[in-house]
């Protein structure tokens, strides 16, 4: 029982960490690829064109 509870807890932390890392990646993608602030846009301009991001 204890082992089962532990394994269930491990499974849910596993899934949580997957979601966490995916969210960090998606946030980074959004900030670097889509954020509209002028400074960020100019800095990332060439890369955004070169990855096909619809940013303007």
């Amino acid at each position, binding site marked *: 029982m204890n082992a089962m509870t532990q394994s269930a807890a491990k499974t849910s932390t596993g899934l949580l960490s*997957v979601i966490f890392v995916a969210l960090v*990646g998606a946030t980074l993608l959004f900030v670097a690829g889509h954020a509209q602030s002028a400074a960020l846009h100019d800095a990332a301009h060439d890369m955004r064109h070169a990855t096909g991001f619809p940013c303007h």
Partner: protein
Amino acid sequence: MIQRMLAGGLVAGFAAGLFAALLHFAFIQELILVGEQYETGAIIHFAETGDSTASHDHAPGEDDEHAHGDSGAEGSAFARNALTVLFTGLIYAAYGLILVAGFALAEHFGRRVEASHGVLWGIAGFASLQLAPAMGLPPELPGTIAAELIQRQVWWLGTILATGAGLALLAFGRGLLPAVIAGALLAAPHVIGAPHPDQYWGVAPPEVGAEFAARVLGVGLAAWAALGWLAARLWSAQS
């Protein structure tokens, strides 16, 4: 688990990003600069009517020098290119994190990710994040025209999610039903169709735009393959 994902994804991502930046300067940057010259009016498409093919072939090469001079107005070319390297590294770090999250999810469902699977994962990531969106919204050369921004972003994001889910179902699903759903997910964004403008008035030549789009996809494929290759190696070495 989190450290393994963060470390592996970031290291592989930055490394693949540097490779992508190298390819960017080898194949893509010169076309962006040409596009910008049309965008700003430094060169005019159809300026010399009657001899169109010849003049277009000439324009990019001849005016490359000007492009470097022009970009000096907005800040040095060095600073601009350094930022491109930095942001390419960041974007690929983001790709790397999303990819290793995929590895961890697969292992969560009992599918081990071997080093030898890495390139396939990379190609699937490329197909989801670049190729499928590019079929509706081709990478835009500066000086070309596209539909309203927010509509494009919605279609872009939806296409990435549907394609990624479709490919995962196709790869890991068992039986006919997951395959049918996968097919529907892969097709849906293209059946719905990407937003397009009613008419085009881009000032950059379509020939340059076509070469730009093809090179962007080629560079993306190479960099994603490298990303998958490296990320899976790091991942399986840590298990």
